[in-house]
């Protein structure tokens, strides 16, 4: 802990010893590549649809490029040791998402989502820059753990005051903008969980009474965190945002396991998850319908009602095959409602094929892996848990959505990180990447001038 602290505080001493490669050049090259790929996709859509390069291609490329360059410069100045991969991956996924949304906009002339998404992406990158600039050391966040949890609960409760949209009370609408506060709450809760578990992990791991094989911690330590967790999940269930509640559940179990090293937590978590899932699936008609759809995706066709969204999504993926139809040449618009948000992956699957889909999933996997790697390299528990928490949020979210639209698990309405239409989601994910950059910078700079890890 102290060594890591001095390393950050005393940069001059590093010059004499072995220097870690900072790889900022690699990051820049990858960012350029990511921007070029996005512009290429944008042009491909235009060429496929109308035979001409879309008029906004240069502006779009310049906009995305300038944003990415700003972020890069800030990282170069303020987090020079940071992992070079998360930022280009974020740029590429966000750029690809913009291309896909622009492509779907062409089929729905009345509803253009790409310009709004571009505004939100700009806000997201701005937040990224702000976090990297302002937050000099992630450990500062530890102090604000309780502020975070109060803010998170407030954000979660806020949508209850607003009318439901499509059966879920997870949006608030102000002046034409709709915001999903639950998205921000998940980062705040990750901070709180990491801080609380880092402070109390010994108490959780080694005290308490033993019941049969599992050692349960004392209520005094476990109580507050379980209360917070139950509260947030309860609110989400009330709001019918089951995807996010599943996410919080998973994140909590993973963090508890990593903090205490007790396999029992996983067992308890899984048992509770199964019980909860069965109960909700039985009692809640909305969820029950989703499970029925998952088990029998073609039931509505057999009933003569035409294919439902999941069936249409499966058709879209199947139409893509190995190499896809090519950008702009698919028909994922047939899925109907939520093509640009929940089901955007179906467009990727149809038009980029399994090859493109695998590439996207591998990008997410890489981002998650880099987060875990930063966590591993750190030497203090808060940073470690924070990195693990944020990475596992990403991994779980990708799994829940991608698994839902490809029929692996029941569908839960959630946004594919960076890719999907949704302002709150894009902004939140840029905040997550900013935190990962900050954590990885600390992780790698602590070794500089010393023996490399």
């Amino acid at each position, binding site marked *: 802990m102290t060594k890591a602290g001095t390393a950050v505080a005393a940069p001059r001493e590093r010059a004499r010893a072995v220097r870690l490669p900072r790889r900022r050049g690699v990051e820049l090259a990858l960012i350029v590549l990511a921007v070029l790929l996005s512009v290429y996709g944008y042009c491909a859509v235009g060429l496929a649809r109308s035979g001409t390069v879309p008029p906004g291609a240069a502006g779009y490329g310049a906009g995305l490029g300038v944003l990415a360059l700003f972020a890069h410069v800030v990282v170069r100045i303020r987090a020079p040791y940071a992992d070079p991969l998360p930022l280009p991956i974020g740029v590429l996924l966000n750029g690809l998402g913009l291309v896909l949304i622009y492509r779907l906009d062409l089929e729905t002339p009345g509803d253009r989502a790409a310009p709004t998404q571009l505004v939100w992406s700009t806000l997201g990158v701005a937040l990224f820059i702000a976090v990297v600039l302002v937050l000099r050391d992630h450990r500062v966040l530890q102090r604000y753990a309780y502020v975070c949890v109060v803010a998170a609960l407030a954000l979660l409760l806020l949508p209850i005051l607003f009318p439901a949209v499509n059966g879920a009370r997870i949006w608030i609408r102000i002046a034409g903008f709709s915001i999903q506060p639950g998205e921000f709450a998940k980062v705040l809760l990750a901070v709180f969980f990491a801080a609380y578990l880092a402070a109390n992990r010994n108490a959780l791991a080694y005290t308490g009474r033993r019941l049969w094989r599992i050692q349960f911690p004392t209520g005094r330590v476990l109580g507050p965190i379980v209360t917070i967790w139950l509260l947030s999940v309860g609110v989400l269930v009330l709001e019918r945002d089951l995807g996010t509640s599943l996410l919080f559940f998973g994140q909590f179990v993973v963090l508890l396991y990593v903090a205490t090293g007790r396999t029992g937590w996983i067992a308890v978590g899984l048992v509770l998850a199964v019980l909860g899932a069965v109960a909700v699936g039985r009692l809640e008609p909305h969820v029950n319908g989703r499970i029925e759809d998952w088990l029998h995706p073609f039931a509505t066709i057999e009933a003569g009602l035409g294919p439902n969204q999941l069936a249409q999504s499966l*058709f879209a993926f199947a139409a893509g*095959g190995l190499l896809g139809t090519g950008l702009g040449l698919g*028909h994922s618009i047939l899925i109907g409602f939520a093509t640009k948000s929940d089901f955007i992956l179906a467009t990727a699957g149809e038009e980029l094929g399994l090859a493109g889909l695998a590439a996207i999933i591998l990008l997410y996997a890489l981002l998650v*892996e880099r987060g875990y790697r930063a966590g591993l390299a750190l030497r203090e528990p808060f940073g470690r848990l924070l990195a693990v928490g944020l990475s596992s949020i990403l991994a779980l979210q990708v799994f829940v959505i*991608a698994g839902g639209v490809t029929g692996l698990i029941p569908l839960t309405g959630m946004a594919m990180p960076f890719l999907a239409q949704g302002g709150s989601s894009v902004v939140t994910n840029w905040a997550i990447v900013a935190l990962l950059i900050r954590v990885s910078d600390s992780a790698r700079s602590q070794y500089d001038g010393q023996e490399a890890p």
Partner: protein
Amino acid sequence: MARYIRHACASCVLLLVALLVNAARVQLVQSSSYDANPANRRPTIARWQQPRGDILVGGEPVTGSTDTGEQLRYERTYRDGPLYAPVTGFASQLYGTTFLEHAEDGVLSGTDPMLAPLPLWNDVTRRASPGGNVVTTLNRKAQQAAYRGLHGRKGAVAAIEPATGRILALVSTPSYDPAELSGNSEAAASAWARLNHDPEKPMLNRAVRQTYPPGSTFKVVTAAAALDAGVVTDLDGRTRSPDPYRLPGTDTRLTNEGDGCRDTTLRDAFAWSCNTVFAKLGVDVGVADMTATAQAFGFNDTRLRVPFAVAPSTFDTHVDKAQLALSSIGQYNTRATPLQMAMVAAAVADDGRLRTPYLVERTTRRGGETVAGGGLRPERQVMRPSTAVRLRELMTDVVREGTGTNAAIRGATVGGKTGTAQHGLGNAGVPYAWFVSWAQGDDDPEPKVAVAVVVEDASADRGEISGGGDAAPIAKDVMRAVLGL
């Protein structure tokens, strides 16, 4: 703690691997079953995503495609739709395809693997090839002549090039415009309903899908059988046939329209279409030989495709002598499509050889490279060449001085046979007027065209009906168009 982080990371990786495996399942393993799901609109969209290939007559397309800008993007258009409808059929976004549009759908829609320059690679990319063209054997002028001749009447014309089996004309009236069915709008649906409820049956392809009693035109077949079997050896010898002829085993007496059929020669019996003579000839030849000859001509063949299926023409093989007598003059259960009767004339014209008729000369890629050629169809010997020579003589006499003088063409040798087929309950219906013929220009080495014409409602007055009066002029026009005279 590091160990647990690794465990957590491993489980996250596991989740993402599960995603990849499942994606591969959906996109590769099960994709074909999803693609084939009837509720999946993508195949339909893909099908109309690009312009359909064209059907060509005389080097000119008679079809086209128009870009509607809708989800089902390209709609079929037709030039001279009603004229070519019995050949092209329709290609409708709502009601599927028929005739050439159906039989050559793979080429026209671009799904035929032969169209792809690199078939295996195209399987991987699933890229559609542009629709190919179908070059027909039709003769534009002959088709127009036939359609003009039938105008306003119900009937059909089929014309064949005897030496090759190429179909030169295929007309059915009343016709319809297949373009009315192309789209997926209300208009297409109402046109579909109207055409299907029309008592005139405009969508019925009378040239290949409707069988008629061939009447006296079937006497060509009976004569061929009699000559081949040696029942008659001399065209000008007496045939020893009574008038009226009592059908064997019954009290029914068969009579003739005119006089002078008793014991007459085959030449005169053929020229004046004596029922008694040919009924007795059929009985003398016997079921076995009559059947063999009729089937050699193509009767009872259920597999004929040109390339769309042709309704089988029938010659009943389980008959007593009285029924055989009637069958031999083209009545009882004997039924033939106009195309079948054109084949009969073609076999006579080509020295007893018959080639399976075909309508598609070749199919090409969009650019014009040939994908598959029509090629010459195998020929079969229907009768002895000498029999064919004698039949040509008989048929020429019909046109020169018999019932078929209306078909005579200056500058050409024309052989024909008229027919008037009774039908309906108690023969109450308006008789069908038939004419089958072939023609050879004076400068041509061999006959160039064989035609069959049927007119269903030639005239309201039964007595006036005759193949020679109503059907022969149409055949003449078609033959002149082919011969260029």
